[in-house]
């Protein structure tokens, strides 16, 4: 009772604090409270003091009012602070403990940044997670809820990392938190939770997964379908989902069916490929390991080709569409299906009536498939296409020929076609470049040069003649006066330290041991090493590292004038490595430094 009165008084005092004590004189609501205070004051003297203080305020002059209000409120606040309630509502129940045995020993300086990375937005968070993962400091009880919460993060790399690395490592301890956080009507984060629960608990959450599949939102449905794809008894459910309204769900179901590979699944995939939205099922079909499906598709394609030849107008257009779908379905399976697919491809590319503008895309797909078959008979057919249809397929023909002919045969057959600016010359160049790209630039160790002995040595002159600089550079295997003069003339035309081609040319000159190569490099560094130099290309690094030691002082001068701090530091490191190298034979030293640099970077 009396506490309620105090709280009431507190409300009035607070009101006066907000309104200002200047308005307190004779305040009605406050004066109404005085008698009740006095009444209780008879038994509890402190209420009398409150009543005195309240009256003091009510009768105070404006100037005194603030002091009086403070007096009253100080007394009231002190009393209220002794009246704090600690009762609880309802009947307390024991906590349902999850019984995790994780410790809480991580110190503040390591825990706090991790929690911040998991619970806020901003940059540098993934790096923090990686670090905590590496030193295993994320295995702390206080982090588990935050880690599971990060599955909902909008910056996809964070939930990816959490899902793939951290939670599997936490293992069973994450299950209760995941389970508590899972909402079947939720979004992507909940789909991740479902997958993790399945990953951690296996078949025991199958019911939950089924529930998500039938009643969840799109994201959860997709996750559930993916998980159920490996259960053959779920065939009915998957078939049903493959006709779902939502595209994403349908596609996931197709993938799951392709994985299942049962007769009914194959029927359904084939049916889907034949229907209007066939586009959607192409990739799932490509992923299917049951080649029976692809063979049936080849048969279908043969039929469509016949229909194409026979029909006209609208029907013809639909035949083209289906053919296009079918042929793309075979992608990635060409070699395995070579025997079945070759007759189809041959027939397609031999049918004069088919090589028209309308079917351009199908022709390309068919030609690509032809290359993919990768058997002698197919490549021979490819080579034959060389001059047909106004050299339309010369690129494919060249690629087939590269596999089957000797270098000199290849050169003799195609070199003349490279010249000029015709469409066929361009497509031949593109084909050539795609082979070169594979040889020179792919893999961990980029070589920037084509395989030795794989090409006829005459090619390089054709390239120089056609001014295909990049090709000249990668074909440059040994010193040749004509070629070096071509390359040096290129440098004279245009030399930029940040330019890809400039560096390619220099690298080629270094490779063949051109005597002025070092001087050309120094020239470039001298003239352009200061301003526009904001990145040292790896090729440039290798060239600097192979310079003779005597250049070190001058390189230091150049480095001293560099505007970009990071480039300068890198440069100095290179120079130091150069200086530190022993005075062995020039070549050996160059290699030694280069090895050291690569070591340092890895």
């Amino acid at each position, binding site marked *: 009772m009396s506490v309620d009165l105090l709280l009431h008084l507190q409300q009035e005092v607070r009101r006066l604090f907000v309104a200002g004590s200047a308005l307190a004189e004779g305040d009605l609501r406050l004066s109404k409270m005085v008698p009740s205070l006095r009444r209780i004051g008879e038994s509890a003297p402190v209420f009398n003091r409150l009543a005195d203080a309240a009256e003091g305020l009510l009768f105070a002059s404006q100037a005194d009012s603030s002091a009086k209000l403070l007096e009253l409120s100080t007394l009231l606040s002190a009393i209220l*602070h002794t009246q704090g309630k600690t009762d609880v509502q309802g009947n307390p129940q024991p906590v349902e403990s999850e019984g995790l045995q994780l410790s809480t020993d991580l110190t*503040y300086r390591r825990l706090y940044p991790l929690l911040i990375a998991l619970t806020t937005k901003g940059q540098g968070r993934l790096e923090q997670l990686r670090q905590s993962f590496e030193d295993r400091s994320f295995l702390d009880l206080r982090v588990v809820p935050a880690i599971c919460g990060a599955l909902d993060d909008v910056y996809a790399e964070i939930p990816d990392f959490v899902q793939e690395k951290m939670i599997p490592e936490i293992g069973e301890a994450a299950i209760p938190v995941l389970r508590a956080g899972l909402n079947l009507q939720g979004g992507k984060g909940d789909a991740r939770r479902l997958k993790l629960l399945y990953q951690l608990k296996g078949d025991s959450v199958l019911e939950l997964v089924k529930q998500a599949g039938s009643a969840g939102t799109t994201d959860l449905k997709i996750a559930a379908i993916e998980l159920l794809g490996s259960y053959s008894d779920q065939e009915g459910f998957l078939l049903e989902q493959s006709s779902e309204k939502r595209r994403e769900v349908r596609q996931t179901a197709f993938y799951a069916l392709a994985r299942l590979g049962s007769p009914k699944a194959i029927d359904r995939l084939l049916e889907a490929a034949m229907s209007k939205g066939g586009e959607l099922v192409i990739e799932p079909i490509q992923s299917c390991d049951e080649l029976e499906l692809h063979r049936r598709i080849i048969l279908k394609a043969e039929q469509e080709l016949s229909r194409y030849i026979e029909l006209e107008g609208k029907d013809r257009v639909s035949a083209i569409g289906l053919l296009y779908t079918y042929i793309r379905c075979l992608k990635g399976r060409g070699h395995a299906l070579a025997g079945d697919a070759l007759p189809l491809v041959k027939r397609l590319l031999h049918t004069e009536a088919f090589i028209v503008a309308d079917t351009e895309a199908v022709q390309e797909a068919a030609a690509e498939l032809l290359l993919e078959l990768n058997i002698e008979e197919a490549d021979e057919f490819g080579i034959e296409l060389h001059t047909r249809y106004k050299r339309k397929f010369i690129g494919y023909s060249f690629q087939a020929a590269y596999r089957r002919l000797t270098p000199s045969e290849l050169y003799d057959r195609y070199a003349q076609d490279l010249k000029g600016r015709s469409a066929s010359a361009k497509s031949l160049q593109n084909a050539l470049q795609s082979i070169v790209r594979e040889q020179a630039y792919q893999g961990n160790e980029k070589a920037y040069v084509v395989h030795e002995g794989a090409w006829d040595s005459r090619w390089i002159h054709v390239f120089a003649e056609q001014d295909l600089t990049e090709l000249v550079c990668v074909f440059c295997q040994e010193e040749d006066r004509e070629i070096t003069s071509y390359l040096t003339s290129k440098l004279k035309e245009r030399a930029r330290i940040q330019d890809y081609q400039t560096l390619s040319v220099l690298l080629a000159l270094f490779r063949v041991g051109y005597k002025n190569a070092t001087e050309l490099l120094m020239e470039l560094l001298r003239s352009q090493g200061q301003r526009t130099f904001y990145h040292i290309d790896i090729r440039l690094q290798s060239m600097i590292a192979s310079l003779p030691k005597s250049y070190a002082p001058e390189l230091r001068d150049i480095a001293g004038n560099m505007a970009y701090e990071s480039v300068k530091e890198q440069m100095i490191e290179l120079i130091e490595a150069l200086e530190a190298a022993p005075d062995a034979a020039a070549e050996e030293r160059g290699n030694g430094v280069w090895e050291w640099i690569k070591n340092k970077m890895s």
Partner: protein
Amino acid sequence: MNLLTEAFIDQLAPNAGAMKNGRDLVKKNSFQVLRIAEDRTLLFGECKGSGKEPYRCSVDFIQQESPVSRCSCPSRQFPCKHALGLMYAFALGKPFEQAEIPADIAEKREKAEKREEKKKAESAEAREVAPPAKRKVNKSALLKKMNAQLEGLSLLEKLVLQTVHHGLGGIDKQTIRLFEDQAKQLGNYYIPGAQAELKELVLLLTEEDNKEAVYTRAMEQLIRLHALVRKGRSYLEERLADPDSPQDTETALEELLGHAWQLAELRELDRVKRDAELLQLSFLSYTDKARGEYVDAGWWVDLHDGTVHMTRHLRPFRAAKAMKEEDTVHAVVQAEELFIYPGDGNARVRWEKAKQREAADADYSAVKSLAADSYADVVKAVKNGIKNPLSDRNPVKVVAFTAIEKVVDGYTLRDSHGKHLPIASTIMKAPQRLEEILPLLPAEDLREQAVLVMFRHDVDTGRLEVQPMSIITERRLIRLLY
């Protein structure tokens, strides 16, 4: 040095960044030379930096518990990342080559030894001659200072009264700017504590959201300021009348006005406890905007009598970069001299020299046995404390519980008499959520244990609540904060 663990090195590091950088140096193989003295008291080596010359760094373990690091790099952090890296390299088992102690370090050691000897001789001498002379106080300066303080308090009072007169509802941007100016002016009157309390009020009033909650807090703060003015004035007037009277050490009044206690003063006032053993129960680092500093706060229990003390390491924004960030401490600290600051409630403590030992089960049991087991008594003591407007509004205590239980709107603690303490999780802000962590704990940790709690009286609801900071069982400490 054989005890050189990664955790120990982490403790030495001035901040989290230095830990990472030190480790990265090891990972990147930046140490070209790693050497160790034959008697295993010195690590030294060379580390590649950005310059031409490598940095030469060393860590001297001649005093096991406080290694001395030296480095030729220009960093102002001690130990720098190179010295830390050197230690991490050792802890991570990199090969160290045995070598002679370099001449320059031998020389430095000798000098340090001499210094130490000289100091010892001096103190022995001093002890023989006479007890340390009382520090002299310049009386006229003191009088002048106290007069200025009184003047400052009057200024503050005027401001408080004016605010109450016009009401909180009428405060606009212009008034706030005026307050800010006044707060700045208060800087001239030797009452930085009072100045900070005023700044706190200004910060409160500039808060944009939830005006209603702000009003209540602002009202409380005005009451506090008013009390500070009154108590401060009567205290200062008393001392002015009798300048020889001692400083107040019963309450935290001196500190509230802004006095920074020096260890020598505390020693003079005999606020020293010898050979104290302390166990850190909780740690938190937060930003005190009003005072312009980061605060690393630790809550420690005295293993002998169960008192809960606080350590507060203050890192002013301006100097924060060069200062060591404190961290969670797991070990038991054995302080030679424990300095206890004046004040009621969880008195602030500090120590200069201390050893550490690993915390054992016996220590946890000791804390548990010292926990208060009657909530009625604890609550009474807490209420008695917080009714004083100048007291610490959030006292911290170790209490025993028979169970942590779930209620409609959260959790509650129950003692052996069936009394409850409602749990709140918003007294201290942290990214981890108490209500998510509690149910994850093993059932036995939620029954018959002790817990470190912070109290809060919620003025709006009239409820007294607690936030658990750590649970103490016989075998471990479960840190809910840090």
